[in-house]
């Protein structure tokens, strides 16, 4: 069993420095890794990124993050990423990472993702260049998410998690105004998760949404935006299923976390 701690939308800035650290200091007792689902800062400045870095530096569990739209606000997403990576956070955008936890290979595929809406009520790649660019960007995020998840399967990960900021499903947006759903996520992300397979999809972004959802393919989705959770982070216990590692090999023996 793998213990996954996750939170998004912590929106740290100098005024809130240290607010989450007491709770994060308990992670060693209750989790094997911490996922950060974007919107870690308020404006995406280097100063705010340093606050986030101090909040998670030296934690007893590995920290894997994606950025959110707030972290892009100052056009300094690369610098924000660098500040977080300096303290050992793995920041994903269009790629995956493999963690070895108690003998089990745990893969996390991450992208910020983007909007566009959900099946039957979504924007299309048509018309003005701005509209086409909008949808193409989401499509690229989704394609990279699927490719990362497939790559993690090839790397024999017994547990795979899709980490995004934007939502793959409308379920976890319940509580948000329907009119803004297209700005909160895209079905393309869910389609990617279902096509490539995952054990869990974690996202943030929708502060007024709800925690629980599922893709059409049956993958559990959790909205871990801190206002939704009402606590510093959530903890999910994921079972480790044994599965074949190759067409010619036997079954992998999954460790128990």
């Amino acid at each position, binding site marked *: 069993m793998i*213990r996954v701690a996750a939170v998004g*939308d*912590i*929106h*740290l*800035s100098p*005024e*809130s420095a240290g*607010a*989450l650290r*007491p*709770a994060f200091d*308990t992670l060693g007792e*209750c989790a094997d890794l911490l996922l950060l689902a974007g919107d870690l800062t*308020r*404006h995406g400045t280097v100063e705010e990124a340093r606050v986030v870095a101090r909040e998670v530096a030296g934690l007893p569990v590995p920290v894997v993050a994606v950025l959110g739209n*707030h972290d892009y*606000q100052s056009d300094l997403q690369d610098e924000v990423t660098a500040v977080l990576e300096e303290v050992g956070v793995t920041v994903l955008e269009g790629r995956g990472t493999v963690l070895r936890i108690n003998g089990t290979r745990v893969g996390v595929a991450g992208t910020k993702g983007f909007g566009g809406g959900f099946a039957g009520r979504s924007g299309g790649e048509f018309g003005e260049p701005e509209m086409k660019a909008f949808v193409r960007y989401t499509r690229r995020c989704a394609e990279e998410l699927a490719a990362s998840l497939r790559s993690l399967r090839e790397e024999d990960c017994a547990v795979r998690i899709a980490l995004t900021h934007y939502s793959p499903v409308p379920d976890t947006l319940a509580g948000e*105004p329907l009119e803004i759903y297209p700005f909160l996520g895209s079905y393309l992300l869910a389609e990617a998760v279902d096509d490539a397979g995952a*054990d*869990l999809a974690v996202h943030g972004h929708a*502060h*007024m949404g709800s925690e629980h959802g599922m893709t059409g393919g049956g993958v*559990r989705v959790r909205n871990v935006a*801190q*206002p939704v*959770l*009402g*606590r*510093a*982070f*959530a*903890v*999910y*216990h*994921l*079972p480790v299923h044994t599965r074949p590692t190759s067409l010619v090999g036997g079954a992998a023996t999954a460790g128990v976390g």
Partner: protein
Amino acid sequence: MSGADMAEYRIAHLRDRLASEDVAELGVRIEERGGSVMLYGTVSSAACRSEVLRIAREELTGLPLHEDLVVACADAPTHREELS
């Protein structure tokens, strides 16, 4: 232009200000309700809450204002979810 229309535009302008000013708060619901304006949602800090209310009072001067803004809880979780 009716008073209601003006309130609608002023609420839209308030949303713009909350997004573009230093507070950068996009997670607050702002709705007209019974002739007054209601602000609710969860913000990241007490200072953020004060700033949102200051801007709202400034932008919506003259309109009755009700608020139910809460600060995000930073406590460690007391339970976990078992996924099968």
